[in-house]
Structure formats: structure tokens, C-alpha cells
């Protein structure tokens, strides 16, 4: 039972932490809860679909279906998070000063809530599909798996609880530093997801590895341990990274930084 709880906890943790971070970072956006809730709902439906078609996905593209699918949705998440981060950094100052004006702006048509929904949807769908696939297999497997189901549900609850704790923690941040801290969280998270996408692209044979193991820090922090996995989700920690993963990581940070600054320069001129 405990083993199943841990499996499901690990599967749910990533989605849960991502949702906590974007919910925290977007706390001044009105109706964000609804968009995120919609993302979770659609994401769960999508996860069930992905689980249902797991066989077809894995045999698609001459066996490369899974890594291609994973890398595409990760890159979509990266672009949505990037958009969100750039948008937030533009508006964060206004937000701290006048939340009401911002609310009006959003209702007039700027669209980050849509990005919020897509990010949530992807996070839930990607990790959720594995959880659904696993739970489904044990729940159709007969009485021998009954305790596993209980464990699974406990694991899911523990994963969600971790997200709630992170969210509560983020809300306690002093308002003066709130947006810079949550934006840093999002930047690192985004770069980490880009590095994960690079791993899957390499797995599918689309990009070269540029060195299989640039360093090996598994002795200090194993990626399979819970702290290692937390760091993997939050900042993209990889114990034995490929060159291409480092390239994607740094490139994402560079692009997001430059875009944010270019927009600032542009705004100052006009």
C-alpha cells in the first residue's frame, strides 16, 4: 500500500507544484481560479484519453510516439509559461499599485488567463495520464490490488496537499518582493521543463545529446530521492544532464530575460 502511495504521490507532485506556483504568481488576476479549475478539469479528461490510448501513442511514429508527445506538450507548456512570465513582469508593478485597474485591463481582452488554463491542463494531463493508467490497471486487476487502490488515493491526496502547502507558503511572501520571487520560480520552472523536453527530443532521436553526461551529481543529490525530485520539478535539477538539456535550459532563461528587457526598453521609449 505504501509503495503505491509513493508512486502516485510522485506522479501528482509535479502537477500539484506547478499549479501552486502559477496560482501564487497570478494571485491578482481576477477569476484565475476558474481558469485554473477549467484547466484541471480538461486536463483530467485529457489524462484519461491519453491513458486510454497509451498503446496507440507508444506505437505511433515507429515507436517514438511517447517521447514526441511528451516533448511537444512540454514545449507548449514552456511557451505558455514564458508568455505568462513576460506578461506578469510587465504588469507586476501596476499590480502592486492598483489591482482594480489591472482587473479591468484583463476583462478588456489581454489574455494570460488562457495561458493559465493551458499550463494547468498540460501539467495535469501529462502526469495525470500516468497516474490514471496505473490506477486503472490495478483497479481492474481484482481483489489482490485493493490495498494498492487505497494507497494510490492516499498518494494522490498527499501530492495535492504538498501543492497547497507551497501555495500557502507563497502567499506569505512579503508583497514588495512577491512578484520578483514568484517570477523567479516560474523562470526556473520553465527552464527546467525546457530541459526535460530536450531529453525527450533526444530520446526521439530529433536532437543530438551533445554529451551524455556533462556532470554527475547523483552522489550529492540523487534525482530519484524525494528532495532530488523536488529540485527537479522546481528548478530543473538533473543529476546527469545531457549537453542539449543544458543548452535548452540556458537558452530558455536567455530568451525570457531578453524579451522581458526588450519590452521594458520599448515601453520606456514610447
Amino acid at each position, binding site marked *: 500500500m505504501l*509503495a503505491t502511495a509513493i*508512486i502516485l504521490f*510522485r506522479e501528482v507532485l509535479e502537477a500539484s507544484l506547478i499549479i501552486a506556483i502559477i496560482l501564487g504568481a497570478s494571485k491578482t488576476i481576477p477569476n484565475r481560479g476558474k481558469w485554473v479549475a477549467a484547466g484541471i478539469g480538461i486536463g483530467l479528461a485529457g489524462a484519461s484519453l491519453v491513458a486510454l490510448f497509451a498503446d496507440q501513442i507508444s506505437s505511433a511514429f515507429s*515507436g517514438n510516439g511517447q*517521447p514526441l508527445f511528451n516533448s511537444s506538450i512540454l514545449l507548449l507548456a514552456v511557451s505558455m509559461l514564458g508568455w505568462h512570465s513576460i506578461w506578469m513582469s510587465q504588469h507586476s508593478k501596476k499590480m502592486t499599485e492598483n489591482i482594480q485597474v489591472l482587473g479591468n485591463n484583463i476583462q478588456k481582452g489581454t489574455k494570460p488567463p488562457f495561458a493559465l488554463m493551458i499550463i494547468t491542463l498540460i501539467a495535469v494531463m501529462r502526469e495525470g495520464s500516468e497516474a490514471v493508467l496505473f490506477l486503472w*490497471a490495478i483497479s481492474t486487476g481484482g481483489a489482490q490490488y485493493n490495498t494498492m487502490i487505497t494507497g494510490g488515493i492516499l498518494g494522490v491526496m498527499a501530492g495535492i496537499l504538498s501543492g497547497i502547502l507551497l501555495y500557502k507558503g507563497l502567499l506569505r511572501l512579503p508583497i514588495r518582493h512577491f512578484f520578483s520571487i514568484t517570477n523567479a520560480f516560474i523562470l526556473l520552472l520553465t527552464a527546467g521543463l525546457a530541459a526535460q523536453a530536450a531529453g525527450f527530443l533526444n530520446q526521439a532521436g530529433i536532437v543530438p545529446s551533445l554529451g551524455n553526461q556533462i556532470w554527475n551529481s547523483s552522489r550529492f543529490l540523487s534525482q*530519484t530521492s524525494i528532495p532530488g525530485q523536488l529540485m527537479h520539478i522546481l528548478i530543473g535539477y*538533473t*543529476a546527469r544532464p545531457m549537453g542539449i538539456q543544458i543548452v535548452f535550459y540556458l537558452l530558455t532563461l536567455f530568451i525570457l530575460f531578453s524579451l522581458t528587457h526588450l519590452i521594458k526598453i520599448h515601453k520606456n521609449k514610447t
Partner: protein
Amino acid sequence: MFYHQAKKFSLIFLICSIFLTNIATAESVIEIKHQQFFPMKIVLPPGKKVKLTLKNNDAIPAEFESTDLSREIIVPGHDQVIVYVGPLDPGNYRFFNDFNRASKGTITVLTPSKRQ
């Protein structure tokens, strides 16, 4: 006993694939049976891309994962998937089933001199 045969088999398989076909990719098969990998230890050639076929004989899906190799892939129940690894440097690379962490295995890539 089983393990030695498996090791011998994979070595023969490996040497055959290197010397007979002499192509850029090597192949290897890992099966999952009763929540265990078989073989649990495989030996792969250095500096080659390797096509790993993962075959799941159980009804429960498995997730073949290796943080050492940066690979993770779901193997649905009674199904098989393909994953490419390498070219790899000599050394040990661990893998495990993320849906059952008790089942683990190691890929060993030998140094060229040792193999001959």
C-alpha cells in the same frame, strides 16, 4: 545461474550484432515479467546507438525510467515499446520501473579493451 546465462546470452548477442552486422546501431531486449526486469543486467557496446526493445509480459503497465540515461517511457501491459540509448561512454547506468521501484536493473557499457 539464470543471470549468468542471461549475461552470456546478451554478450553473445552483442558480439554478434557488432561483428556480424557491423552497423551503427546495436539492439537489445529487456523483458518485464512478474514485476522484474529480465535480464536485470545487460551489457552494451560503447560508442554506439542502441535500440532497446522493452517488452512487458505483465498486465500492469510499467514505466521504464533511467535518470542516468535521461530516459522515461511507459510500457503498457502486454505490449512493447522501443527506446534508443547512447552512444554511451563506458560505465554503469541504472534503470528502474517507476511504477514499482523495487524492480531495478543496470546497463553496463564496457571499455573497448575489456571487451576483446
